[in-house]
């Protein structure tokens, strides 16, 4: 990586870090934190889907695993929340590897891969709703104990900064991936898997690395979600909503680009929030907006906003 690769990310981090200085309104910080968590989940999807061309429709499987691991370990076993957060990332990565191994080894591509990931996420959702261990249908409440040592903070501003730091880290990792051999091979697999194999790319290994990294990132988003909202149930953790958000943000902002997921997530959530304010709380109105936006993005090339902005410059 060169300085030119890194400075836009650091600049973004620095500017975004100023937000809590100017904004103290709880709702706005709430909104910002939630958007950043989605950015992280979406960046995870972007690594596998955007760079690798393997469109997952079940990133909830990783988000939920990260979230439930963080929550269950501290509620049931009293493990330190920072440790459970890391454990959640690790477990999500393992789940990612396993799902990847099962589907890529059998040569699943395209919509078949999407369906298998969706199926995994749904199975996890049903299971986590049924077993006692995860709190079942009643969900799981992480006791409020706002101390930094407990990964809970008195002020939202601090939590915002922690999430932001992780998003910046994810951006840097994505940039490093983009510039690495693995990144080049991953993009080659996306563009043409047979041609990639012919020039020595071990497609299975490359895709497995990508899904593992991807799952870890989305798992981290899940862990943060649990830690911030302190409540989980199966439809939050493993629900389709997060699979959709994770893929929608990069597709709208620019799949296979470093900043695409961030731009997409910010646009989506700003739009959803603005509509809510204008038309009031109509259940599901944000999903309608997302749907319209997706149709527009797919229907009218240039494919994504980042490319469009670049083209204008």
């Amino acid at each position, binding site marked *: 990586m060169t300085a030119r690769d890194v400075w836009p990310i650091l600049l973004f981090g620095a500017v975004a870090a100023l937000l809590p200085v100017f904004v103290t309104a709880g709702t706005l910080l709430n909104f910002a934190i939630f958007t950043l968590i989605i950015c992280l989940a979406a960046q995870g999807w972007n690594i596998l889907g955007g760079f690798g061309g393997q469109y997952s429709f079940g990133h909830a499987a990783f988000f939920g695993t990260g979230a439930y691991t963080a929550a269950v370990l501290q509620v049931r076993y009293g493990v330190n929340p920072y440790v459970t957060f890391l454990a959640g990332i690790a477990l999500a990565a393992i789940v990612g590897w396993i799902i990847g191994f099962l589907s890529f080894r059998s040569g699943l591509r395209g919509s078949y891969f999407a369906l298998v990931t969706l199926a995994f996420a749904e199975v996890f959702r049903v299971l986590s709703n049924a077993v006692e261990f995860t709190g079942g249908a009643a969900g799981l409440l992480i006791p409020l104990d706002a101390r930094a040592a407990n990964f809970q903070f008195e002020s939202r501003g601090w939590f915002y900064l922690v999430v932001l730091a992780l998003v910046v880290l994810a951006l840097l990792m994505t940039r490093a991936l983009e510039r690495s*051999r693995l990144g080049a091979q991953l*993009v080659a697999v996306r*563009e043409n898997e047979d*041609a*990639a194999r*012919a*020039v*020595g790319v071990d497609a299975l290994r490359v895709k497995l690395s990508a899904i593992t990294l991807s799952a870890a990132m989305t798992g981290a988003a899940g862990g943060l979600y649990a830690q911030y909202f302190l409540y989980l149930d199966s439809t939050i953790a493993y629900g389709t909503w997060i699979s959709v958000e994770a893929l929608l943000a990069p597709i709208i902002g620019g799949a296979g680009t470093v900043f695409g997921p961030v731009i997409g997530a910010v646009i989506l959530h700003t739009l959803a929030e603005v509509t809510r304010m204008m038309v009031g709380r109509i259940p599901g109105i944000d999903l309608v907006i997302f749907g319209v936006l997706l149709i527009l993005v797919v229907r009218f090339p240039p494919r994504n906003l980042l490319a469009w902005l670049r083209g204008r410059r």
Partner: protein
Amino acid sequence: MSFLEIRNVSMRFGGLMAVSDASFDVAEGSITGLIGPNGAGKTTLFAIVSGFQKPTSGQVLWRGKEITSRPPHVLAAEGLSRTFQIVQPFAGLSVRENIAVGAFLRHRRRADAIALAEQVAEQVGLTAELDKPAAALTVSGRKRVELGKALATQPKLLLLDEVLAGLNPSEVRDIVPVVRAIRDSGVTVLMIEHVMQAVMNLCESVHVLAQGRIIASGTPAEVVATPAVVEAYLGHGAATRLSGGAHA
């Protein structure tokens, strides 16, 4: 021990025998041609040698070692690279990035891979198009990218599947010396080719495949004089008619 030996390779697709008991050798440092009419099984044979398909029976030996049905990426790492008849560029990537994917095989660092890619681009005459998207190139340009990607893996054996097909005569004239230079740099070349001008020009030895069988082997001049080869291309009885022995 030959450089590449193809031993009694057969490939059956259902009721169709695409390749049937084919055997031939490729000598190290040579440019060897594989010719034959359409549908003779040449590309299938390439797919077998490069690991994309498992033969129904038979063996491929490389430097005395059996390599039959090893996966393509393993073979590429061992120095065996191929191009595709239907060009397979990484369409969304620039020419530089396309070739760099091949270069990454032996170079972990991006800067090294890019440097090698640019060097290979010069070798195949693509320096001026390095920044263009591969999808924007002409057929001739795409064929060069195909060649460049394979070359960037720094192979010892290069399998070229009709790199000259679809090019006009002047483009063919331009690429022929490129192929020869590749051989002169120490890479053995096995090429499938229909453009006879190039085959006669480049190849030291030629094997003719027709209906899945090797029907003739020898120098290009010997092979085109073989009646069986003439008949494979032009139909039964053509050889005698052409030689003026009988009236149709």
